[in-house]
């Protein structure tokens, strides 16, 4: 905004003379630029992730055929004579863990969310909130330790045929890890349904369960679905629990009781070992990371789409 001196009062003219082009004025112009550069770091991080994954994956596909990568069902990168890079066993491992985690976490998470929003009194909510916050804040390495030293031995006592490394124990513990995500986001969605809707249903003679299941739950469905999808996305990307308790055997079998490997735990296995820089194995972690990135990005975009597209406005 330019103003001529004619419109300014004498005091303003003096101030103008003193400060225009001075420190104050310059910093007012420089600061937004500095802040913009800071904001650009997040964009550069995303670009960095995408470009890193793409370029190193392209290098990987110079050594390994892309057809083999997507169609072969053998993942034997460490074989000296005949290494094989078909990603299916790793995807299957991830899917097994994610499936068990969801089967465990979705019913429990929704039950807790419904209890807290529809049945519980203020006191129960006050007790449960910090418990869920602590569960959400427990590092995954701790959950991994818990899976290996408590859940696995417990399950093996009940099912002696279960191997030390299996899909069920880490699957359940990944489920425990995502319960807080599902509960807190679902509860937000349930409690954002207006009280008048709830009272209307109760006044018509519905029981609390009928109100919850036929009125509140459908109204909050978009938020609930989004919370489940986000939970699934976290399960897909979970690394430490599966690295510790699921083993490191890529497997194309559907057996849940034997050792397996997920996309994430393969990356951990290679980077804890001594695969040298520049080897095919080194580049393979980027191709696996890229696949993993695509999976989680798709889930996150799906969650955003669900919560925007199907949102009920009151």
């Amino acid at each position, binding site marked *: 905004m330019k103003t001529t001196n004619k419109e300014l009062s004498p005091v303003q003219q003096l101030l103008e003379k003193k400060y225009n082009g001075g420190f104050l004025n310059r910093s007012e112009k420089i*600061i*937004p630029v*500095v*802040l*913009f550069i*800071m*904001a650009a*770091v*997040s*964009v550069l*991080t*995303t670009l*960095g*992730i995408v470009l*890193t994954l793409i370029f190193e994956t392209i290098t990987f596909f110079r050594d390994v055929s892309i057809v083999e990568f997507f169609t072969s069902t053998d993942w034997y990168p460490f074989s000296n004579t005949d290494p094989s890079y078909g990603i299916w066993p790793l995807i299957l491992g991830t899917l097994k863990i994610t499936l068990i985690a969801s089967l465990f976490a979705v019913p*429990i998470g929704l*039950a*807790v969310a419904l*209890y807290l929003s529809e*049945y519980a009194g203020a006191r129960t909510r006050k007790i449960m909130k910090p*418990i*869920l916050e*602590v*569960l959400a*804040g*427990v*590092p*995954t*390495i*701790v959950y*991994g*330790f818990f899976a290996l*030293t*408590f859940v696995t031995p417990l399950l093996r006592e009940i099912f002696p045929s279960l191997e030390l490394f299996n899909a069920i124990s880490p699957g359940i513990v990944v489920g*425990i890890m995502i*319960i807080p995500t599902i509960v807190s986001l679902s509860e937000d969605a349930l409690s954002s349904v207006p009280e008048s809707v709830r009272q209307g249903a109760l006044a018509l003679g519905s*029981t*609390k*369960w*009928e109100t919850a299941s036929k009125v509140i739950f459908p109204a909050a469905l978009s938020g609930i679905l989004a919370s489940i999808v*986000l939970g699934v*996305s976290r399960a*897909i990307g979970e*690394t*430490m629990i599966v690295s*510790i308790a699921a083993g490191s055997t890529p497997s194309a079998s559907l057996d849940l009781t034997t050792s397996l490997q997920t996309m994430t735990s393969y*990356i*951990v296995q290679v*980077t*804890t070992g001594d695969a040298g*820089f520049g080897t095919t194995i080194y580049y393979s972690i*980027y191709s696996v*990371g890229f696949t*993993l*990135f695509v999976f*989680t*990005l798709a*889930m*996150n*975009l799906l969650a955003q789409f669900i919560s925007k597209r199907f949102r009920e406005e009151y």
Partner: protein
Amino acid sequence: MENTARVKAEEMVGRIDGRLMKNKAIKGIFLTATVFTSIILIILLYRIISQGAPYLSWDFFQNFASRRPEQAGIKAAVVGTLWMMSVVIPTAAILGVGTAIYLEEYAKKNALTSWIQMNISNLAGVPSVVFGLLGLTIFVRVLGFGNSVLAAGFTMALLVLPVIIVAAQEAIRAVPNELKEASYGLGATKWQTIYRVVLPYAIPGIATGSILAFSRAIGETAPLIVVGIPTFVAFLPSGYLDSFTALPMQIYNWTSRPQVDFHNLAAAGIIILLGVLILMNSVAVWIRNRYQAR
């Protein structure tokens, strides 16, 4: 006609008991699920404390890692985590708050801004192991920091950056408009208003969100593994380009050994890790409660 109405009414009354019973049963199931979730946490904490507590001694803090469990300690890991956090905290806090100020106070409502915003929310959903791959490529290889404090610290800072940005944005958005207008009315410039009015008001909210983000950085393991941080270290770093180990790495190392003794050491390490995290969370909650009253 009247007869069928009466039959219907009787039917409805007859069903009330069943409906109420169903409501009660389902309430019981939901309550069980809620109690079950709390019990999981109690078992987890109990197991770790009963396994690890006997190993907590002054020597445990004083000793380096060792192949003999009775001599092994956690000194290198604790010191290493402190070194790493001395990179993570300033980097993530400055970048996070700066980005939030830009987005809330300076950015125009256009396609670029909403694209940056979308970018940040998607970044928050990227698995931590993928951030490790970014750190391995950019910081360890391209910039040549090696498996150092700096490489790990920058990787962790980028990982928690989205969380801090979102928290800071919410805190800045909550500053009442009247305060800003009063500041402008007194002749303050835009930056003066932000620096002296908006930020002081928003600091408690920013601090709460940032502390939670930093506690996540302390507990994350996967990015450190991918960046190539060693687990068996018998020295302390003396500079930012030195190699180091961190608490979760040490716990991972002990957990992946088959001997029970090492598992107990891992439990002792977890007690320290959880202790630090619970302390940080309590500070965050304290700040939130103290300033929420305003």
